[in-house]
């Protein structure tokens, strides 16, 4: 048997097609890494579009409007305040820390000021007061002192928490109490982010950590919303959203507290950690190409006769071919992984790879740390059923129909259709779809106590389903190969 396997491997490695596909994969990996690096350099694309264009547009529109006309009033306030906001944004730049302050704190003042313009008899004293406050804010913006804003917010948050506590104490109905509880939790999250900003020196300037603060805040709000409104009628999708938010909030928290960059995807580490989502298609194509030809090609070219008149049972020959495919699968996964490791290291530098991998454990409600190597190993084990089952399908089809093209095409179509089947099953709420192989072959969805795509599936359930499909595919393959008459070619 070992002799047969050695021969099969020799045959594969002498073929040009294998190397061509691997080279194309390498080219893709290099291209992808370079593109990701360029994207990360030009991070924070201005989602406000072109500020200059906006300013010109607003100015033109304002000329048409009469602030004192009752009909134009609300539109004037909108346009005028937006125009002034854009001008300030342009002045400080879209990536500056002032941007966020202008957007959240200064914009209301600008609206107030614009409102005074529309009043025929405006209150001069109040107007002056607003203008003074506005000017003071602007002068603080110029001082590069973002901490003062954070401190103000923190103070405000603390004050509000006290207020909400009082409301809670004096609450008469349960509903009011729950409402106050929810507010307190919101404010606690806000307070936490502000404390982090001051402690860890994370300004409002757009940066990796500023993004994490936003991520933590938004995810935590979703978590609170879900937890406070828990009801019996929760769908799996809602629960999945909740788990997702929980994971995102905790991962952001980990990075902020430890000063790590585990969520950064545009470095050698991030590219490696996302290995399977980026390069899965290549693994599938290469292994399906090999498994889809290993039997049928020998039949089509007549070389199978050379093999079948040797002192080995047909079952042994087929088994050795199947084992060869498994070995090739391991070689393919490892070599593509190595390619990404080396290319990622060369493009981004290897430093980031020292950071540990983290995963949120839903059972223990805590972050688990592990080395990148063991993280990749866990991921590989979890994803392995996908590749083994697709490989077996291609292998079976190629043996049953003696047609490589059919075997490869059908398998790839099946792979592409798998997510569609899963989606249809979830959307139409078809429970029996969980007995299909496609919702079960990705074991990673069961790891760390996460919620699987389908309710009622578990790791054990998935493994049994996978094993059943595996055996169902192999039995006819062996029977047909054993009984087949070698026809004239």
């Amino acid at each position: 048997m070992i002799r047969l396997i050695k021969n099969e491997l020799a045959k594969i490695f002498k073929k040009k097609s294998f190397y061509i596909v691997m080279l194309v994969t390498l080219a893709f990996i290099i291209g992808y890494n370079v593109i990701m690096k360029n994207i990360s350099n030009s991070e924070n694309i201005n989602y406000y579009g072109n500020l200059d264009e906006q300013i010109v547009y607003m100015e033109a529109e304002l000329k048409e409007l009469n602030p004192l006309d009752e009909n134009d009033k609300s539109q004037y306030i909108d346009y005028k305040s937006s125009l002034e906001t854009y001008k300030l944004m342009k002045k400080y730049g879209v990536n500056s820390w002032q941007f966020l302050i202008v957007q959240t704190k200064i914009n209301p003042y600008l609206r107030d000021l614009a409102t005074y313009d529309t009043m025929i008899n405006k209150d001069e004293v109040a107007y002056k007061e607003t203008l003074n406050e506005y000017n003071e804010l602007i002068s603080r913006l110029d001082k590069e002192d973002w901490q003062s804003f954070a401190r103000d917010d923190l103070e405000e948050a603390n004050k509000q928490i006290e207020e909400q506590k009082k409301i809670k104490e004096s609450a008469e109905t349960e509903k009011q109490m729950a409402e106050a509880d929810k507010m307190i939790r919101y404010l606690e999250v806000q307070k936490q982010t502000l404390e982090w900003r001051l402690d860890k020196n994370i300004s409002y300037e757009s940066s990796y950590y500023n993004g994490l603060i936003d991520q933590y805040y938004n995810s935590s709000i979703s978590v609170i919303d879900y937890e406070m409104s828990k009801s019996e009628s929760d769908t799996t999708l809602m629960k999945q959203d909740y788990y997702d938010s929980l994971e995102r909030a905790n991962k952001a928290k980990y990075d902020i507290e430890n000063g790590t960059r585990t969520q950064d995807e545009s470095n050698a580490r991030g590219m490696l950690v996302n290995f399977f989502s980026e390069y899965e298609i290549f693994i599938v194509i290469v292994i399906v190409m090999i498994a889809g030809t290993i039997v049928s090609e020998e039949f089509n070219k007549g070389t199978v006769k050379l093999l079948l008149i040797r002192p080995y049972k047909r079952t042994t020959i087929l088994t050795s071919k199947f084992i060869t495919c498994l070995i090739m699968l391991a070689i393919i996964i490892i070599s593509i992984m190595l390619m990404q490791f080396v290319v990622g290291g060369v493009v981004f530098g290897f430093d980031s790879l020292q950071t540990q991998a983290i995963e949120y454990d839903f059972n223990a409600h805590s972050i688990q740390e592990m080395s990148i190597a063991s993280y990749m190993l866990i991921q590989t084990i979890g994803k392995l059923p996908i590749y083994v089952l697709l490989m077996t399908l291609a292998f079976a089809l190629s043996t049953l129909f003696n047609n490589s093209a059919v075997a490869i095409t059908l398998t790839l179509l099946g792979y592409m259709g798998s997510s569609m089947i899963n989606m249809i099953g979830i959307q139409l709420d078809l429970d029996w779809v969980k007995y299909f192989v496609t919702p079960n072959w990705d074991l990673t969805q069961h790891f760390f106590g996460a919620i699987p795509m389908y309710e009622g599936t578990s790791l054990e359930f998935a493994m049994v389903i996978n094993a059943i499909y595996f055996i169902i595919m192999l039995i006819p393959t062996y029977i047909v190969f054993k009984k087949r008459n070698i026809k004239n070619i």
Partner: protein
Amino acid sequence: MGDVVLKCEHLHKNFGRKEILKDVSLELEKGDILGFIGPNGAGKTTTIKLILGLQSITSGTVNINGYDITNNFTKAIEKVGAIVENPDLYMYLTGYENLKLIANLYKGVGKDRIDEVVKLVKLENRINDKVSKYSLGMRQRLGIAQAILHKPNLLILDEPTNGLDPEGIKEIRELLKELAEKEKMAVLISSHNLLELETFCNKICIIKNGKVMETNKIEDVKNVAKSGYIFEIDNTEMVDKMLKGVTVIDNTKFKIDIEREEVPSIVKRLVENDIKIYSINEEKISLEDAFLKKTGGNVID
């Protein structure tokens, strides 16, 4: 009698309702070279595939070196080398790599043996070229090399000269002659071309429409049509009264079935009767003529 290497008994093969082989029996002893002859579609390749276990046997048995091919496949096939149909080799590999793959599958077939076989089939100069660059003749020789690599005692060659030019056929024939002598194995060669086999086969089996018409020593097949002599004389009117077993061809020619030793006495009698003899020619019967007489042309169902 020598050791029986291959014994096929009452082989039948049906494809659906169609009977491809009807009661084929064969026997090969050590040192035999059997010419397996029949027109295209007679069932030669099918018989060979049954012997090699490439197709299932409808009924009957194949026994190689004492082992049954269906019940004890690995033992039975161990000392068999074969080319079936075309020498289908891995075209993207070199000749040497092809042989190495085969050698890997047997115990004790090393580099020395590969080199020895390569020399035997005279491929030394091209053995490291890709098979896709080989001519058909070279591929046939490489096919033979892979078949004899593990020193089989039964060699089965299906149309080894198919598609070759006369020069190539001659080469292969000489190679096989040499091999049969050197390696001392029983050989089964199928062909639809009799001429290329008659010179070195010692046994012959004629198959037609899935049925064995004749299995015999080659001389016996030749004797089916007796040899004779053709005389050219001035007048043939009188000869059938004078001699026995005469076939008159025309006014000046007649044929007589006699042995070589009898020729002088016939001449003497003709001369005594005042008949002028212009020429005497021996009529040679080739295997092909015998074959055509036996099969009476070729009809494929």
